């Protein structure tokens, strides 16, 4: 069992290196360090000296992948790529191209993102699963057909519409919640109410359908027929037999959402003015600030990988067939 986990952890390292390499190459295809310096310095006519000074300050004067000045192994290690990667591994994000500390920005902006994402995820999960269970209970009845039609319709509406409509009706017309903005500390709940509600609402359509299909698949399995042959009520069958078994595939669905925890829902944060990591990234893309983008991609990759590991781990916890066989192969 331990060997399996060690192998898994080792296989992650090439992924992190691969991701960083791809981001590195992609971004420097768009912008060479010279262009970046020009963009940040802002003026029309900048001298080559000013560019060189800026590059040196931000560490962009090293060659990208291969340093011809050095010999042997150092050819590859004394390059921009390696230096940046090493500092990332130490969680030293350095400074943004504009001169501000990225690490600090992440530390402060992390909390609003989490405060928005975690309740949305948990409440959404609870609402979706309950509704899906109800629909499954009344399978083959008009209630189920009606419910699935509504789900398909809800799913076909763009999330932008939910946000705009929600903001207009609840914030502008009814004035039940503030339109946008944020306040740190415990007062934040006022500003989070509307975004969380809208996030949950826009996810109901696809979420309920997905969970319903999972439950229906479980219901067609043989052990449900055995349970019926025992004379147990339908509700008990759903809650004691179907739901625990369905949790195993549900876990895969959840892991996809975990990277959202850190990246934040980019759109939500933008529309509601919540100073989280998502809006941080969007602004960085707009300003073409590579240092921030690099750090956010690294963070996003880490959370994705953590999510993958967590799925495997929770599979082992939830499914005794996996647990006793010593890990999935």
């Amino acid at each position, binding site marked *: 069992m331990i060997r399996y986990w060690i192998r898994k952890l080792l296989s992650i390292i090439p992924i992190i290196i691969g991701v960083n390499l791809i981001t590195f190459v*992609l971004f420097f295809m768009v912008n060479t360090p010279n262009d970046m310096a020009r963009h940040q310095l802002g003026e029309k006519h900048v001298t080559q000296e000013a560019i060189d000074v800026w590059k040196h300050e931000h560490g962009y004067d090293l060659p990208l992948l291969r340093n011809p000045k050095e010999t042997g192994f150092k050819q590859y290690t004394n390059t921009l790529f390696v230096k940046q990667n090493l500092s990332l591994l130490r969680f030293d994000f350095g400074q943004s191209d504009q001169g501000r500390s990225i690490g600090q920005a992440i530390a402060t902006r992390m909390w609003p993102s989490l405060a928005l994402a975690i309740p949305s995820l948990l409440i959404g999960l609870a609402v979706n699963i309950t509704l899906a269970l109800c629909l499954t209970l009344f399978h083959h009845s008009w209630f189920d057909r009606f419910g699935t*039609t509504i789900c398909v319709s809800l799913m076909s509406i763009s999330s*932008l519409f939910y946000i705009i409509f929600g903001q207009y009706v609840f914030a502008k017309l009814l004035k039940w919640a503030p339109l946008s903005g944020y306040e740190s500390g415990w007062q934040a709940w006022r500003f989070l109410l509307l975004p969380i509600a809208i996030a949950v609402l826009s996810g109901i359509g696809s979420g309920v359908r997905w969970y319903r299909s999972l439950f229906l698949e479980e219901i067609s399995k043989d052990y449900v027929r055995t349970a019926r042959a025992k004379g147990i009520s339908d509700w008990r069958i759903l809650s004691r037999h179907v739901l625990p078994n369905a949790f195993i595939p549900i876990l895969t669905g959840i892991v996809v959402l975990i990277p959202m925890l850190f990246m934040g829902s980019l759109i939500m944060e933008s529309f509601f003015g919540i100073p989280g990591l998502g809006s941080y990234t969007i602004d960085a*893309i707009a300003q073409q600030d590579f240092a921030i983008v690099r750090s956010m991609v690294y963070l*996003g990759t880490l959370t994705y990988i953590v999510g993958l590991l967590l799925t495997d781990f929770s599979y082992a916890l939830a499914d005794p067939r996996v647990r006793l066989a010593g890990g999935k192969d």
Partner: protein
Amino acid sequence: MLVSDYFIWGFALLVAAIIWRQTRTEIGKNRWVIISQKKSSIIAMVLLVFFMGITLLDSIHIHADSINQDFPSLLDLAFPKAAQITETSYSAPLATHSYQAEVMLTKDGSFQSSFPALKITHTQMPSLLILSLKGIAWGLLSFALLFCVSLLSRCAITRQWHLSYSDAWRFSALVTGILLIIGAIIYQIAKHYHVLGTDQVGQDILVQTIKSIRTGVIIGTLSTLSMLPLAVVFGLLAGYCRGWVDDVIQYLYTTLSAIPGVLLISAGILVMQSQLQHHPDWFHTLAERADIRLVGLCLILGLSSWANLCRLIRAETLKIKSLDYIAAAQLLKLPFWRILARHVLPNCLHLVLITIALDFSGLVLAEAVLSYVGVGVDPTTASWGNMINTARLEMAREPIVWWPLLAAMIVMFLLVLSANIFSDALRDALDPRMRSSNLANKEKAS
């Protein structure tokens, strides 16, 4: 003709060919029966055919005069002249006067704030009722024409004179008729009014919305098409060959999935933009430039999302590989590529079709979001994303301007809903799991 025109026409012909081949085989006919069992899927299919028809009509571009850089399509020429009249600014749907008050000089020389009349209006404005009746008449006429044409062509092909139509065909004829009537009514009204009002620069919203259909459909189809070769080839190889090939491909798609999608797409778009800036000789008009940007966006969207389909095909290939007919093919010493192409791939196709249908709606919705982030289509291209983006700011105006947003939302909703319902029906018809599980129940049960 623009670049994307060739793509979308090629796609439409491919789909038509696939459907034609399907109707020849017994299995194919069964599938159509299953798909057309529910009324909702028939409505969805008819709507999709309409949307596709509008897209194709909008994809035949005629080279116009280069004086005013105009590049109209057949659809542009089909619009009534009145719809192309540009007002000064906002106007509500079916209005005769401008939405905003302007200060105007009255007859007696004083300044007064009032609502000026729209350019489209003139003294004799026909009533909406008469226009609707005219529309119904035209609609019925065009439906009758279409019906005769299809009847004659079917007679010619099958060489029978006595034809029976199933319930499904009758219902789809009914739906087509209703849609034609609605279309004719709107057309008649559009000759005299701005049916959906105008936007900030005075352009007719109806025209914009309908032109955006092409953008949405192209993004939905082209992106999935561009991801197919990579996903299918890699998925098949990974599942069949195992060993180091499998490891490498798995590494590739895990790495790609780990990078947040928005960033990949943004990077791709920015690269493309800088390439376009450096090569102005690739295109001659603004329209062509915007079009290349659209095609580029589709390719990038496809290239960044092949991981999901690849994973599915790999899993399916693994399952198929353990089946006996593959072992039999190996025993018969069939070459490796032939086994993959003739034995494995056709049994994975259902996954491909289902993914195409499912992703279609997701991509259409994603386009709106991407425009918001700034990496969507060119601002000069008509698209729902652009409409929603500009509309967002208009919600804050007093009095509120709601019609551009609602128009974009409703038409986009119709397209996405039809695609979702159709892909559901397709999945029911194609997924052998569902069918084989029903069969297995029947076999077990007896």
